[in-house]
């Protein structure tokens, strides 16, 4: 009996002490740990700790409506990209026509007009590659108008490049349609987030709607 009582009296407090010590030193309650430190931060207005339900919401299976929305969104993005690069290709075809003319057939002034036209088309093509960003969609409208100007200029001044104007007119129409398509994408929010621009969302929307 004595040894049993001895064991019993010694073991129980020993286990209890180990138990309490383990729990205190463990500090494994992640949720509480984060919550208690949240108040130390000053950089975030919303200092909520992460709870399992916050994390779990995106782990669930997507609903059919979600999947349909995602598919529609993806389709629209691809349509915008395809249309943009189709317009770029049309402009490259027009440039190809211009550079196919032998330099011997052109006067200095005609070469100058031709090179300027190609340069301005380059700028427009670059604008197109950036056009998937909402805030520069307005620029695209301006550049498209400039393209119409380039076409008229070539028609008037460069006798050897008359066939190019047909291609440029086609490209102008194509870019006009593309701008409308991109504006539709913008209105539906099918555009990825970029760096903030100086103009506000309202300003961009208003310019595009013009």
């Amino acid at each position, binding site marked *: 009996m004595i040894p049993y009582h001895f064991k019993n009296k010694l073991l*129980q407090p020993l*286990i209890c002490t180990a*138990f309490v010590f*383990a*729990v205190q*030193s*463990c*500090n*494994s309650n*992640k949720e509480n*740990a*984060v919550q208690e430190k*949240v108040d130390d*931060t000053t*950089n*975030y207005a919303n*200092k*909520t700790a*992460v709870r399992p339900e916050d*994390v779990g919401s*995106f*782990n669930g299976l997507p609903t059919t409506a979600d999947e349909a929305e995602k598919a529609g969104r993806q389709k629209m*993005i*691809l349509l915008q*990209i*395809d249309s943009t*690069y189709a317009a770029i*290709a049309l402009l490259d075809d027009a440039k*190809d026509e211009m*550079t196919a003319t032998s*330099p*011997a057939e052109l006067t*200095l*002034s005609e*070469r*100058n007009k031709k*090179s*300027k036209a*190609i*340069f301005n088309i*380059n*700028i427009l*093509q670059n604008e197109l590659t*950036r056009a*998937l*960003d*909402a805030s*520069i969609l307005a620029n695209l409208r301006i550049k498209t108008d400039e393209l119409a100007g380039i076409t008229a200029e070539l028609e008037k001044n460069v006798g050897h490049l008359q066939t190019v104007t047909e291609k440029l007119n086609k490209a102008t129409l194509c870019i006009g349609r593309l701008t409308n398509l991109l504006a539709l994408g*913008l209105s539906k*929010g099918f*555009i*990825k*987030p*970029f*760096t*903030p*621009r100086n103009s506000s*969302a309202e300003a*961009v*929307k208003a310019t595009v709607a013009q």
Partner: protein
Amino acid sequence: MPYTSLSKPLIGIIALCLLSSCIGLKTSQLNAVEKYTVVTKGISTIPPDVYNRVYQLRSQTQTLQLSGVVATNESAKESIAALQTDLSDKLKFLDMVDSFAYAYRIVGKYADLIHCLISESYLKDFTKNKREWQSSFDGLVTTYNAACVNRIPQSTRIPPSVGSVAANIINELGSAKIKSLQKKYLKIAVTTARKPFEGICDDFLNTDIPKIQKELEALPQFVNENYKDFLNNLKAYETKQGNSPYNYYKFYLPIYLNWQVQLRELSTLIKQLHICILSLRNSYGVLDDFIGNDKAGKDIPEEIVQLEKDYLSLLDTIAKFSEARERLFKITY
């Protein structure tokens, strides 16, 4: 007596259970996190580099073509205007690269923070600059979120919980031991960032990759048309004005060759980057589940092993670029 004899093992079992739940992550789990963070940090610098390469090509060929405009212009005023337009266009490209870089810089910085919860030496270095890190991270998140708000309708922002977790870790760095930080924050730091991280990867896969692939299809013609116009003006300079264009050709032919090399490098880079980001995206959930599993095995999940392989292959390809370039130029000139 029977009650006492039953309570002893019971208390013992409870104590053991509690103790086992307090044990930190297993070595395999820590290794998995370390591999993932190293790869993430490495990959995060590449998408902006890809955009930089694309715009560099567009920009360089445009400048060459512009020389034809300047050479044939009679008015210096017109030439200056064209040069200004060219400069403004280049600056817009640089803005675009910075714009794309935001999301990836956030990802890279967050990977840095998680890495310091794994490696003692990394933690030591990181702690020295922790305040600068936090300020930079906060700035990037604020800017990125402001961009999301500006969209119509608003895009998904990086949730405040990500910043809160980061701020908590930063506050304890230097005062708490790495094991304690791991136990307290590692799992939550990984889980909290899962949604925005996967969102950034999805953005790249669904928007950037299709766009860059189309860009890559369009670039060769863009390069050629600009070069053709330049050659036309050079030919006229040679034949009509009786000049020898030898020095021009000597200087400009390697430039064309260099662009062709750049196009090939870009194509290879995009293919491999696509694989890596897809692997990165798909293995985040695996990592999150693996480190949350108390019964995790001793082997790192296959997805993370594959991610590391994909990343090493990408690095190997990039390392070979300069060697291949050097060999090509040697046999050409």
